Structure formats: structure tokens, C-alpha cells
């Protein structure tokens, strides 16, 4: 059974630093703020699943660094942002596996949806100093695919309704999330 942690940032810049010593799932929701996160996997054979979901109206930056300080540790980062206005949104996502840590899995998937003409940047970084590591990254910046919108609209949903459904799926994309913990965030999606 994993430890589950919820973080909700609302219009206030924050910094977090955690030592992770057991299997952990972090659901991090953020409304229009910058954030700096440092996560250190300090015990062998543990896993971290980290879901960052961000709604953005002004110029903001999200930095996260995951350090695999012990062998056989596993990290999966899913960073999803929606850039609503014509502003800047930067993601700087770093996975670090030092030489002493072998058998690690260090993955990250980053996506930013631009609802308008905002400038978004994703910097996916994998700093791997050990040969026995499985590590992948993916990054996407753009709008919702026209094919998805066509499919939803072909069943009668208006463009607005289709976008709303896609936004919900994109920003609250975990089956296990407890919606009562993030009511404020869900309400914010309605406003986009």
C-alpha cells in the first residue's frame, strides 16, 4: 500500500523538499503559481508516482528534481499543464541517477496544452551516471488534437463541451484521485 500525499497550491508560489522512504503517490495540483519541488528517493526498492496538474494564467515556472539516491528505486513523473492565456509557462523537469545507484527506473512525461497563443517551454532532463538504468522522457506542447475534438463533436458535444471534457481528462487523469481533496481545483477547471 502506497502512501498518498495531496498538495494544492492556489495563487501562491511554493517550494517543497521531501525525502521519500516508502512507496509514495503524490497528487500535486496548482492554480496559477510557480513552484519548486525536490524529491529524494532515500531508501532502496521504493517507488514514487508524482502527478503534477497545473492551470496557468500568468507567467509561471515549475521546477522539479527527482534524485535517485538509492539503488532499485523507481520514479514516474506525469506533469500536465494548461496554459490558458497568452503568457509564459516553463517546466524544468530533472531526473538524476548518480553513479552509486543501479537498477533504477527514472521516467517522466510532460505535456502542456496551450488554450491560446501562450509560450510554453518544457526542458526534460535526465542526468544518468549509471549504466544499469531504464529511463525515458516525453514532452508535448500544443493544443488538443483536432481529431479528438472531431470525435467528441461528432457525438453532439459543442466545441466548448468537448474542450471541457478533454480538460477534465487531462488535468484529473488518475482513477484513484479523491475528488473531495481537490474541489477548488475542479471548480477552477470549470472556469477555463
Amino acid at each position, binding site marked *: 500500500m502506497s502512501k498518498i500525499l495531496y498538495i494544492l497550491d492556489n495563487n501562491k508560489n511554493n517550494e517543497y523538499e521531501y525525502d521519500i522512504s516508502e512507496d509514495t503517490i503524490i497528487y500535486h495540483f496548482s492554480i496559477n503559481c510557480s513552484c519548486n519541488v525536490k524529491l529524494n528517493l532515500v531508501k532502496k526498492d521504493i517507488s514514487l508516482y508524482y502527478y503534477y496538474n497545473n492551470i496557468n494564467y500568468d507567467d509561471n515556472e515549475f521546477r522539479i528534481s527527482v534524485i535517485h539516491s538509492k539503488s532499485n528505486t523507481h520514479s514516474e513523473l506525469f506533469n500536465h499543464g494548461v496554459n490558458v492565456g497568452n503568457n509564459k509557462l516553463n517546466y524544468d523537469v530533472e531526473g538524476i541517477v548518480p553513479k552509486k545507484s543501479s537498477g533504477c527506473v527514472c521516467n517522466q512525461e510532460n505535456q502542456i496544452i496551450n488554450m491560446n497563443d501562450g509560450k510554453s517551454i518544457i526542458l526534460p532532463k535526465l542526468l544518468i551516471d549509471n549504466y544499469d538504468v531504464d529511463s525515458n522522457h516525453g514532452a508535448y506542447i500544443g493544443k488538443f488534437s*483536432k*481529431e*479528438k475534438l*472531431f*470525435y*467528441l*463533436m*461528432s*457525438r*453532439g*458535444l*459543442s*466545441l466548448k*463541451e*468537448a474542450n471541457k*471534457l*478533454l480538460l*477534465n*481528462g*487531462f488535468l*484529473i*487523469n488518475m482513477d484513484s484521485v479523491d475528488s473531495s481533496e481537490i474541489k477548488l481545483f475542479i471548480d477552477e477547471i470549470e472556469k477555463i
Partner: protein
Amino acid sequence: MLKIEKLSCSLSDSNTNILDDFSLELKEGEKHVIMGPNGTGKSTLAKVIMGHYKYKVTNGDILLDGESIIDLTVDERAKRGLFLCMQDPTVIDGVSNSEFLRTAKNTITGEKVNLYSFIKDMESSMVDLSLDTSMLHRSLNMGFSGGEKKKNEILQMKVLKPKYIILDELDSGLDVDSLRIVCDNINKYLEENKKVALLIITHYPRILEYLKPDFVHVLKDGKIQKSGDINLAFEIEKSGYNDIDVGTRIDIDE
């Protein structure tokens, strides 16, 4: 009636017509089939009728119950009763099948559907389609097999109750049992809704043995070259398109 009048269309970024002066009428309760070699515009026809963003109408008109729909958005066409069962349904991660279906039903009917009765209805329809009811709670088409995707399209058809149904290669990716099941469900829907018209796009006559069409048309070079009954489909299956005499177009009204 769905009336396609001298329709020409091309890709949005091209001037080369894919459909060229194409005409067809689907009257209430009729079942028409479009067959044709690869690349002749069968799927293009289905997508243009639905208003797909990749295509532009360069000439002609599409009339639904007497009104032109070419200036309508995709959702407005759906609300008027058009339904396109897609050849390769889109995967949408994060949006559950039930959430999508309920939103679509709310939109099409204009009524707020009760969640409990909706789930019960869905489960019953899914049993009819031999679909695992757990698929209701999975992301839309995500991880579905080819057959499950097609059955899910027919599930949507049953929920949304359209007046005009276009089946774009429904039979591709379906095994014989699944094909029989989806066709049984379509036939049951048509039996219960006698005014519904069906446009079937296919390469093979097997699906037609189940759906029993009224007319079969051969599409070539962007227009209908020949029309006939189901025997035309069997003739194509036996001899191919090259041996079909396209010089004798039969008007279906005759």
C-alpha cells in the same frame, strides 16, 4: 431524407477533388451501400457528410431533411440526427466511456440524464453487444481491441438514437461472431426505428448478408459508376472491380 447533390470536395489544403459531382439520396428507412477500390473517396464521403475539418466542399450541397448542412458545425450535424460509426475510433485518454456517453446523451436529448438509470441502461446495452461492463469506466477506446472499439461505436449509436447512420468499414477488425453481434444490434435498432436510414461503406459482402441493403453503389473516380442490388456486391467479391462494367449506370429510381 439525406440528399447529396452534385458534391465535390477536396482536402482543405488542396485543390484536387476527391469526390467529383457525387450525388446520392437516402430516403427514410433505406439501406445503401458504397463499395469501391481503395482510395476512391468512400471514407472521405463519410467524413465530409459529418463535417470533418480536413475536407472542404468545393461544389454541391448536402441536405438533411430538406436543409443544407454544409455550413453547420460537426455537433450541429450530430444533433440533427447524423451518426458516423468510425473506421478507426479515436482514443481519448482520461475521459471515461460513461462520462463521455452521458455528456453526449445529455447534449443530444437536451435533458439531464439520471446517472443510476443511465448506468443501468448502458449495462443492458453492453450485455446485448457482449461487451464487458467494466469498459464503461475505462478511458474512451483506450486499450480496447479492434472489435471492442467497433462495438463501442454501436453502443454509442444505441444511446444517441440517430436518424441517419453511416457505417465506415464497420466490418474491418471484427471476427465473425462479433460481426454477427453488432449487425444483430443494428438490425434490432432499425426494427425499432423504421425511419432510420443507413449508409454502409464496406469492401466485403459478408456484412451485407446480415444488414440486407436495398441498394449497392460502386464509387470510382469520385462518383457513383454503377448501382444495383446486393448481387452487385457478390459480383464484385467474385470478379473484382476491374471486371465490373461501369458503363451502364442504373438509376435507383428506375
